[in-house]
């Protein structure tokens, strides 16, 4: 710890000295950014915003990330200070407090060799076998704490290798992760009149379990009935081959990945009791290999674009060890196969990627009839490997722009959402929704504008056939919703917002129809953004991978500051 502090002191000292020197001599560059969130918790038992430490007695929670970066003499160094005070990001029902250096790195390029040490973000291909990334709203930060070397043979070909441990809050998981990838690029001779390019790649990742974790694995397997017993592997290897072919206006990406046999925890696997007089239960480690095939084909010309995607996943759970749960300890990232929706009600139901078995297709078409009129159509269909429906969506949206005065976006979304699988709610089956929506933006002047949104979610509305496999389809979940928003902007500094999400027709007879309002102000000054919002947010129970977790309702004031320098 003391050497870390010493390093930091030296870093800041050198940085500050050089900052002064560099400002005079323009020899280096110092930059950074700040994200700070503060939440005041206001108890509201009517919507269930209560009975957590924050609502009971802590009353305030905060998170802060301060990034500092300095580049000079071919070096690129960075450090990030993280702070969590009574934060509910890590556990929405609990309180997390910690602070310290969340990340540091040093990078240096020597001729064709790139050297990087510290906490590193990187991926291989599309991330199917390896992705180290950060996603702050979910407090995902699985940076690789280690070293990476990348050698560029020329402009088109490079090879990289890395080794380290995955970051876990302010420490790291014990298993070792290492990997390598080769990436290349071929392109046609444009002078010859052809126009194509190839970007192939090969990757490999290996995870080696440490002795302590293996002792826990062996102890667990020892408790299994002999019929459920499996072997255990210290090492898992994942291989990936990928390529992007671009020909004219077409682009085709394909990636295939294979993972060697290893022990993974399947929460739905039937486990025989050790004492056979007891009933079987669910959840045990199984030893399987896995594979993923993923491809996208896109075409883009002036005013017209089509993207087709397909993915098949089988037993591709790649974690630091079989005991980590939910979104912790993931070494890889499987691309989601449904549209990312931004409107509140359209985004209420999302399909969680299923690591153990999934077959998914998605198609997206965009067409501009003119500069004024645009159209987008999206379709996605996701089933398990037994052809039981998990998620289906049809999304159609039209945009009309009238000069620079006003703009209207309108459309409809149809969803089939398997709540029984995604939220582990027995006998619930499929939630069917139809959600028309509209957004209107009107510019009074160059600086003043008004944006309004309206959505209505009908639930329990049958559409699109009955091929839901073994699941029923009359689930209304919490019932129908309406969402309205008005946002007034005074460029370049001010945005004022007011919205309400209303459970206009609850599914349970006699249930109270609650309002979930929000009022907010945003102030932007140069590279600083300040916002404060009073928010009430509906709660929900989310069950994934056999684990149920309550995402509680929120009631209170949220403040945030974003600043770059």
């Amino acid at each position, binding site marked *: 710890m003391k050497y870390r502090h010493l390093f930091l002191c030296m870093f800041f000292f050198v940085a500050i000295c050089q900052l002064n020197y560099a400002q005079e001599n323009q020899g280096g560059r110092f930059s950074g950014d700040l994200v700070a969130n503060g939440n005041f918790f206001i108890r509201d038992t009517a919507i269930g915003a209560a009975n957590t430490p924050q609502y009971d007695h802590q009353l305030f929670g905060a998170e802060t990330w301060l990034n500092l970066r300095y580049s000079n003499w071919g070096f690129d160094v960075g450090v990030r200070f993280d702070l969590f005070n009574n934060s509910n990001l890590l*556990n929405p029902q*609990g309180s997390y407090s910690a602070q310290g250096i969340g990340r540091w790195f040093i990078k240096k390029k020597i001729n064709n060799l790139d050297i990087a040490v510290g906490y590193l973000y990187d991926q291989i291909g599309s991330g199917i076998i390896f992705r180290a990334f950060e996603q702050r709203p979910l407090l995902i930060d699985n940076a690789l704490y280690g070293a990476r070397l990348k050698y560029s043979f020329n402009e088109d070909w490079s090879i990289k290798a890395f080794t380290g441990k995955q970051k*876990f809050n302010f420490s790291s998981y014990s298993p070792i992760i290492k990997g390598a990838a080769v990436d290349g690029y071929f392109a046609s001779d444009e002078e010859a009149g052809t126009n194509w390019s190839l970007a192939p790649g090969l990757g490999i990742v290996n995870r080696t379990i440490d002795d302590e974790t293996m002792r826990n*694995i*062996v102890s*667990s397997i020892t408790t299994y009935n002999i019929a459920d017993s499996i072997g255990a592997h210290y090492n898992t290897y994942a291989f990936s081959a990928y390529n992007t072919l671009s020909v004219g206006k077409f682009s085709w990406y394909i990636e295939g990945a294979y993972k060697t046999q290893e022990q993974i925890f399947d929460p739905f696997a039937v486990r025989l009791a050790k004492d056979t007089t007891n009933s079987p239960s669910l959840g045990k480690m199984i030893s399987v290999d896995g594979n993923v095939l993923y491809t996208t084909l896109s075409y883009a010309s002036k005013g017209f674009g089509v993207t087709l995607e397909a993915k098949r996943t089988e037993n591709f759970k790649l974690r630091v060890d079989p005991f980590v749960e939910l979104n912790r300890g993931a070494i890889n990232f499987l691309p989601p196969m449904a549209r990312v929706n931004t409107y509140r009600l359209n985004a209420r139901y999302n399909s969680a990627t299923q690591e153990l078995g999934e077959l998914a297709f998605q198609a997206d078409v965009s067409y501009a009839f003119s500069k004024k009129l645009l159209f987008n159509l999206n379709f996605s269909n996701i089933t398990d490997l037994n052809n039981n429906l998990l998620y289906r969506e049809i999304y159609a949206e039209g945009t009309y722009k009238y000069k620079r005065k006003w703009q209207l976006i309108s459309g409809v979304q149809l969803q089939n959402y398997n709540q029984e699988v995604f939220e582990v*709610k027995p*006998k619930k089956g499929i939630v069917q929704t139809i959600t028309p929506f509209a957004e209107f933006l009107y510019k009074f002047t160059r600086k003043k504008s008004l944006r309004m949104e309206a959505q209505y979610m009908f639930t329990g509305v049958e559409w699109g056939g009955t091929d839901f496999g073994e699941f029923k389809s009359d689930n209304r979940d919490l019932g129908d919703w309406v969402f309205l928003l008005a946002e007034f902007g005074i460029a370049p500094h001010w945005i004022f917002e007011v919205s309400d999400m209303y459970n206009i027709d609850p599914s349970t007879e006699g249930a109270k129809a609650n309002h979930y309002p929000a009022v907010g102000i945003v102030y932007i000054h140069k590279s600083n953004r300040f916002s404060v919002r009073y928010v009430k947010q509906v709660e929900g129970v989310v069950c994934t991978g*056999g684990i149920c977790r309550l995402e509680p309702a929120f009631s209170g004031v949220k403040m945030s500051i974003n600043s770059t320098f």
Partner: protein
Amino acid sequence: MKKLSFLSIIVFALCFSCKEIQPVIPPFGDGGGSVIVTPESRKVLIEEFTGVSCVNCPQGAAQIEDLISIHGESLIAISIHAGFFSSPYPGQQDFRTEEGSAILNLLGGESSYPAGVINRKIFDGEIDHQVGQASWAGHIANELTEDAKVTIDISTNYNSETRKLDIDVTGGAIEIIDGALRISVMVVETNIKDKQLTPDGLIDDYSHKHVLRDMLTDATGDELALEGLAVNETYEKSYSMVLPEAWESGNCSVVAFVHETGTTTTVLQAEEHYLGE
């Protein structure tokens, strides 16, 4: 390109030429009955947070029964009904207790159910005391390899007419123990037939096991030793209560455990005593 091909061949050849020696899975144990349990034997406490509307919790309970069938008296389980999933259904008895809610807040607050706390320790790689079902077996097995630092002996006197229960908890330190210590004493009832949500729907006569009914001490325990215990230093605590009519005394037991306090809350030893004994 030649450099690249050569490197690729080396890398992939290395991968396939490496073969590991897999760990040996020991022969399957036949349960705690084959292990002679003495007052000095280490016992492990698992506190499971659960609720009648937690659909996945029955599988956690089933795994605990499985682990008990393996470890026998060496494993002591308590099911604490607390949090969002524990509100009773209409007409159902309420398994929640004030102490249970306080213990939940003490041990990390409500997170993902089923969740278990093993010897009130925060294990490496975990963010708080609560660990998922997948890792219970491993942590319990590792804790059982530790030596017991203190003994606990429970004796009870129960009057079936007045339903008055008298409890004496005695014990002593096996080795020197530094730091403040506390003792928690609970009354637990098992095989309570009542509603429970399961993956097959709501069951009316589900058998609830090891349900925390009441605590004779504070939720955080009673003070046992402010400055630890010297070798062979003894302690003695006495408690009394009247069992409510709704409780089946024959299914009740007293659980006592000695634990640290302050920055660590590790349980040093636990013991269980059935009223019928």
